[in-house]
C-alpha cells in the first residue's frame, strides 16, 4: 500500500509529500530508505527492483517491507543534494523536532515512522565527485550489533569508522540510538546508477530478510565482505588545483608507489602533480569529477597497516 508519511504545504499550490510503499504484513518490519541526498540515485534502482520482486513473490514474504524511495523529494526532483529552500544537508538534521522548522519537522516524522523496525537500510551513492565500491559504513559504537547484519548485504567492504560528534545528526545514528539497527550502504556515484551494484544489493537485502525470517525463497549465496577499521584506509588528496585524470582503475588492486592519476593544467600542458598510492591495496574510492582544488579527495585505498 502506498501512502505519504508526511504532507507539508509549500508556498504556491503544492505539497511536499514523502511516499512509502508498504509491502506485506506481519510482526517483522524491514525499512529500505534512500534519496536523503537528492543527487544520489543508486537507491532508486534498488527500490524499483525490490518492490517488483516482493510484489511478484508476495507468498514468500513474512512481515512488512517499507520502501521509502524519496526522503528528500524536492532535492531529487531538482537535482540538488541538500534540501532546497534551506540548502542544508538533510542527513545533518536528524532526529529533528516536531515543533521546529519545516526541515526539523520532516526529519522528526521520518524517525517516528521508521523507529521500532527490526532493521533499516539507508542507501547512499557517494556524491557527484567520487565513485565507491559497494560498502557498508558502521560507527564503531554500533559495530557489535551491525557488523553481523552487514555481512548479509552482499557488499565488498564493511568500513567500521570512528565516532564523530557531527555524525550524531544522521538518520542512522538517530535510529541506532533508538535501538532500530540501521545500516548505511554507500555505493556507486552521484547522479548515475550502476545497475550491477544495485542487483548485488537486492540479493543482499533478500539474504538479510531470509536471515530475519522474512523471506523463504532460496537466495543466491553472498560472498563475505572485507571488514576493516579506519586504520587500514589511506587517503589521497589533491596537492594543488587543476584537472584530475586517473591512470588506475576503480576497484583494482594497486601497489605502493603505483600511479593513481595526475593533476593537470590543460592551459599550459603541464602536469602539476603525479599522485601515487601510499600503500598496496584495493582502490575502493576514486574521483570521477575532474575539477579539483587543493584538498579535493582523489582516492581511498584499503590496505596497509
Amino acid at each position: 500500500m502506498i501512502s505519504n508519511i508526511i504532507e507539508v504545504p509549500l508556498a504556491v499550490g503544492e505539497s511536499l509529500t514523502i511516499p512509502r510503499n508498504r509491502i506485506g504484513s506481519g510482526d517483522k518490519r524491514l525499512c529500505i530508505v534512500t534519496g536523503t541526498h537528492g543527487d544520489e540515485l543508486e537507491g532508486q534502482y534498488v527500490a524499483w527492483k525490490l518492490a517488483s520482486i516482493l510484489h511478484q513473490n508476495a507468498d514468500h514474504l513474512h512481515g512488512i517491507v517499507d520502501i521509502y524511495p524519496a526522503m528528500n523529494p524536492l532535492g531529487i526532483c531538482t537535482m540538488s543534494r541538500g534540501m532546497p529552500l534551506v540548502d542544508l544537508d538533510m542527513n545533518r538534521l536528524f532526529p529533528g523536532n516536531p515543533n521546529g522548522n519545516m526541515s526539523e519537522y520532516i526529519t522528526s516524522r521520518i524517525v517516528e515512522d521508521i523507529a521500532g523496525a527490526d532493521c533499516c537500510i539507508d542507501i547512499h551513492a557517494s556524491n557527484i565527485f567520487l565513485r565507491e565500491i559497494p560498502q557498508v559504513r558502521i560507527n564503531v559504537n554500533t559495530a557489535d550489533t551491525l557488523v553481523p547484519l552487514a555481512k548479509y548485504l552482499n557488499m565488498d567492504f564493511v568500513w567500521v569508522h570512528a565516532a564523530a560528534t557531527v555524525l550524531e545528526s544522521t538518520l542512522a545514528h538517530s535510529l541506532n540510538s533508538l535501538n532500530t539497527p540501521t545500516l548505511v550502504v554507500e555505493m556507486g556515484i552521484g547522479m548515475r546508477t550502476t545497475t550491477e551494484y544495485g542487483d548485488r544489493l537486492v540479493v543482499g537485502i533478500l539474504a538479510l530478510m531470509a536471515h530475519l525470517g522474512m523471506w523463504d525463497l532460496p537466495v543466491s549465496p553472498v560472498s563475505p565482505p572485507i571488514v576493516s577499521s579506519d586504520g587500514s584506509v589511506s587517503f589521497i588528496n589533491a596537492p594543488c588545483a587543476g584537472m584530475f585524470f586517473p591512470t588506475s582503475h576503480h576497484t583494482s588492486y594497486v601497489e605502493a608507489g603505483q600511479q593513481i592519476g595526475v593533476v593537470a593544467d590543460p592551459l599550459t600542458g603541464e602536469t602539476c602533480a603525479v599522485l601515487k598510492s601510499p600503500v598496496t591495496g584495493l582502490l575502493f574510492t576514486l574521483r570521477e569529477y575532474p575539477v579539483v582544488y587543493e584538498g579535493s579527495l582523489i582516492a581511498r585505498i584499503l590496505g596497509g597497516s
Partner: protein
Amino acid sequence: MKEQILFSIDTPYRQPLPVKGWLFGNESQKSLAIVGALRGNEVQQMFICSRLIQRLKQLEDRIRPDAGILIVPCANQFSMNVGKRFWAADNTDINRMFPGYNEGETTQRIADRIFRAVQGFSYGIQLATIYLPGLCTPNVRIMHTGYEEPLEGLDFGLPYVAIRDPQPYDTTTLNYNWQIWNTHAFSLYASAKEEVSEESAEQMVNSILHFMACKGMLDVDIQPLCEHPRVFRESSLKNILNSCGGLMLKRRKLGEHVCAGDVLAEIMDPMEGSLLEALTAPCDGVVFYYHGANLIAGHEVACRILRDDSV
C-alpha cells in the same frame, strides 16, 4: 594599520583567492580577532568589518599600546563573487569545518588556515548569521560550553545576550572551537544579511568599539545602544509556526514589543489573495526573529518571540 594576506587558495581557472586580514595596534599582542563573512551571502557581515576598519583607522592613536586587533572581513570571496552561499565547488559550509584539518578536504583546509590565523587571541568575535532563513533582532550569542563568561556579553551594549546550548553541528563552528581553545568567543547577529543596512552596521560597529573600550583596548567613550541588556537562554524563545503555505505579510517589526493576541503575520493565498491564516502572539514579548522570504511553506518558523518572563 597593516593589511596582510593570511593565506591564499589556488583555483583552476580563477585568480588565486586571498584571505586578507587587517591588523591594528600592537602586532605582537593577540587581544581581539574579528571574523566577518564565512558564507557567500554574508554581505552585511563583510560590510560591518569594512566600516569597523574605517573607524579604527580614525581611532588608531586611541588604541592602547598593549592591544592588538585582527579583522578578517571575508574568507569566502570565492562563493560571494558567484552568488553562492556555501563553498561554490562542493557546497560545503566553512563554518561547519572548524577547527579544520590541513590534510583534509578543501574547506577543512580553509577552516584550518583561518583558525590558525585567529587562534590564541584573548577575545574572538564572529559576525555570524543564523541558519534559519530569516533575520533576528541584533544580539550577542554565547555558546554554553562550560568555558563561557556570559556577563562579558553585556559589554557590547546590545539589547540581548542569548546563551545557546550547543547542538551536535555547533561543535564544528568557529565560535565553539574558539571557546574550546581558550578564546572568549562571541557571535554578533546583525539584523541584515544579503542586503546591506548602514544603520545596522553603525550599531554593530559601535557595539564592538564599546566592547573594546570595556576591555581596555581602546580609549574612547562610546554610548551603548542599550544600558541594560537582557541575558536569556536561546531555548526559551517561543517558535510561532504557520500551518498554511503561502505569501507571508509581516505585521510588526523586529525588536517590537507585542502583547498576547496581537497579529504578527498574515499568510495569504499567493494567487487569489484571500487570507489563509493569521499568526498571533501567544504571549507578551519581543519579536526576536522573522522568516525572511515573502513566500513561506507550511510548518515553518514564521516568527520567534522572546517572552517577557523568560530567562
